[in-house]
């Protein structure tokens, strides 16, 4: 009974240590990850639900396909992946440590003959002299050797960068560190969103499920601005923020510029520029009406969609308005409104009136020239709010990964053995990888070796 249990445990251990499992997991992670790039994730748009059959929708939902990177089976894959990493490392690390701490000091006869890199030197001095000379040589040209005397021969062993065999394990470990960082972030961090209207401040933000979460301080949006390129493409989204504690601006956090790619961090909470919009949709717009043949300009303050009738019976309404028309009408800038005009007994007409271009407004040739003066509606700035205490652990993991990969890919464990016998000395070389580069290095070493006068 005990033996079968033992063998079961052994089998389980071997299973989690196996490279086949590693390959299976890497391919499974790669293949399943595709699902989440094709199906919508998180909030599913209603058009999508209408598009697919209810059965399909139910099956996908049951399988967690609509939030697949957090589904139980994907997380399980990641856990098994981590377990596989840990087991492989536990199994192989002792061997590697042993390999580094107890190197093969004496090359066996068999391995010697099959070595691709070898050189032989004849000499006439005593074997003691030969050994001393070679120790000196290796010390100077390669690295300090370890000397073993065996069967009237001296075996010299020298090595370089033996520790680079650990590079692979540093990479494996770094993946675990990144996972730990991600877990810390998901447990102790949060993400949210807050919209602040110009001139107002907030003390809380909307958390993941829309619930209000306190910030612990106050954020005031002094101003929000969008700048455009002449082509109409946006150039800069800029919020000017001030942090308030007990209603007073905090030193160094007053009127801070926040743009995309330049967030603001206060007390571990970071604010990222993410969106903007018109605050009160019902804000009032000012429209001017000037008779073409001269006369006083009349001002009308109207809300969007609200019709207004002029003295001559013409009716107009503001359909929509923007405080920066450039993205919609390249070549123009500043506020503009789309207005619908219905002259008495005529079909309604829609056109755009500008604040900065009275000539354009007048060019339409109507008896009543309309203009736009802007709105009292304020803009709001939309900010992502995030706190992630695990992020530094993630960066530590990334740094370890880069270091580990550099070591594992670009460095090699180089070893040189020298056997000093009576009358002749033989030198052997080996590198853990990139033999081609090492063989050139070995050739250089050999050239100096063969010139030794002993």
């Amino acid at each position: 009974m005990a033996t079968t249990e033992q063998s079961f445990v052994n089998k389980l251990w071997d299973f989690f240590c196996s490279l086949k499992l590693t390959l299976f997991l890497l391919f499974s992670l790669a293949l399943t990850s595709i699902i989440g790039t094709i199906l919508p994730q998180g909030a599913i748009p209603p058009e999508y639900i209408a598009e697919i059959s209810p059965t399909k929708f139910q099956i996908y939902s049951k399988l967690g396909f609509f939030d697949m990177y957090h589904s139980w089976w994907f997380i399980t894959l990641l856990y098994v992946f981590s377990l596989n990493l840990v087991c492989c490392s536990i199994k192989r690390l002792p061997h590697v440590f042993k390999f580094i701490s107890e190197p093969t000091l004496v090359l066996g006869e068999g391995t010697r003959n099959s070595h691709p890199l070898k050189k032989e030197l004849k000499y006439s001095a005593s074997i003691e002299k030969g050994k001393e000379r070679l120790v000196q040589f290796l010390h100077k040209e390669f690295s300090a050797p370890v000397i073993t005397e065996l069967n009237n021969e001296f075996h010299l062993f020298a090595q370089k960068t033996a520790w680079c065999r650990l590079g692979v394990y540093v990479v494996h470990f770094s993946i675990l560190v990144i996972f730990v960082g991600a877990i810390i972030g998901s447990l102790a961090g949060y993400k949210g969103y807050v919209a602040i209207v110009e001139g107002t401040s907030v003390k809380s933000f909307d958390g993941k499920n829309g619930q209000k979460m306190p910030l612990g301080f106050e954020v005031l949006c002094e101003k929000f601005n969008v700048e455009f390129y002449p082509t109409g493409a946006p150039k800069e989204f800029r919020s000017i923020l001030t942090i308030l504690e007990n209603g007073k601006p905090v030193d160094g956090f007053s009127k801070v510029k926040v743009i995309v790619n330049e967030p603001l961090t206060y007390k571990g909470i970071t604010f990222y520029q993410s969106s903007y919009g018109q605050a009160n949709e019902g804000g009032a717009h000012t429209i001017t009406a000037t008779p073409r043949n001269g006369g006083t300009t009349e001002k009308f303050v109207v809300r969007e969609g609200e019709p207004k009738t002029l003295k001559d019976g013409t009716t107009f309404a503001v359909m929509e308005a923007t405080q920066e028309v450039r993205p919609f009408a390249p070549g123009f800038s500043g506020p503009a409104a789309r207005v619908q005009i219905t002259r008495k007994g005529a079909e309604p007409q829609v056109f755009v009136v500008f604040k900065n271009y009275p000539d354009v407004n007048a060019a339409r040739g109507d008896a009543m020239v309309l203009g736009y003066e802007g709105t009292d509606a304020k803009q709001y700035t939309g900010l992502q709010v995030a706190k992630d205490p695990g992020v530094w652990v993630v960066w530590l993991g990334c740094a370890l990964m880069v270091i580990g990969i550099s070591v594992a890919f670009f460095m090699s464990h180089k070893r040189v053995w020298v056997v000093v016998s009576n009358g002749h000395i033989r030198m052997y070389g080996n590198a853990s990888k990139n033999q081609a580069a090492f063989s050139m290095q070995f050739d250089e070493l050999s050239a100096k070796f063969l010139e030794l006068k002993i």
Partner: protein
Amino acid sequence: MTSSMLFNVTTFTYLISMIVFFTFLASKNKSLGLTGSFIAYAGFAVQTVAIALRWKESYDMGVGHAPMSNLYESIVFFSWTIILIFAYIDIRYKYRVVGAFVVPFALLGMAWAQLGMNTGIEPLVPALQSNWLLYHVITCFLGYAAFAVACGISIMYLVKAAVEGTDSATPAGGLMSMFPPLRVLDDLNYRAIMIGFPLLTLGIITGAAWANYAWGTYWSWDPKETWSLIVWFVYAAFLHARITKGWVGKRAAWLSVIGFAATIFCYLGVNLFLSGLHSYGSSKM
């Protein structure tokens, strides 16, 4: 002289280089192989000047930024990196014929960019106004380029293996005698991926760092991010498969081809078929 003219010269030079490489294959004239490489290097030199010039032109227009901001600029840069990695492999290992299978990738990129794309210099949208753009794009595309070279080498392997496979006792003569031995091709494939994998890793990390800096999330399972991870998984599998028995040779070559297909999907497919944060040059915040 404008960068656009020089890019046309580049495209033409790569075309000549490819034709010379093909003639080299057919004629087995050694000096043609060397000529093919040199023409490719000449094209590379012109392209380098052209990229620098386009960079300068953007500053002259008052919208100065590194020329890596939209699909056109990225594909031009991609073909530049492909020739760069090819030059490294070519100078280091001197198997000229590899050029016949790698230069066409660079040519294809340039031809598509020059003939089918809007080549205008556009100002940078706010999301791209960061130094991370440079680090992220350079590392990613050098990685992609190494995978392109590995894919070209793997195609050579598969072609040679298919021709020789029928009677493997005698190495095939004719065209196949120009190819390096299968063992060498397998090794070159591995070496190219050894260059690409660290660069892709750096590319993903710089992308994560940038995303965290700009949006507050280093990883959001955006399709582009996910596909870059899929590519990473495939090549990680390739590297681990090599140390198990039976995964060198044909299977490794196929894995390399699949890896590059995934890379191309990550680069182009995601933008064409899926939605996400990397819609080149669109006015995302």
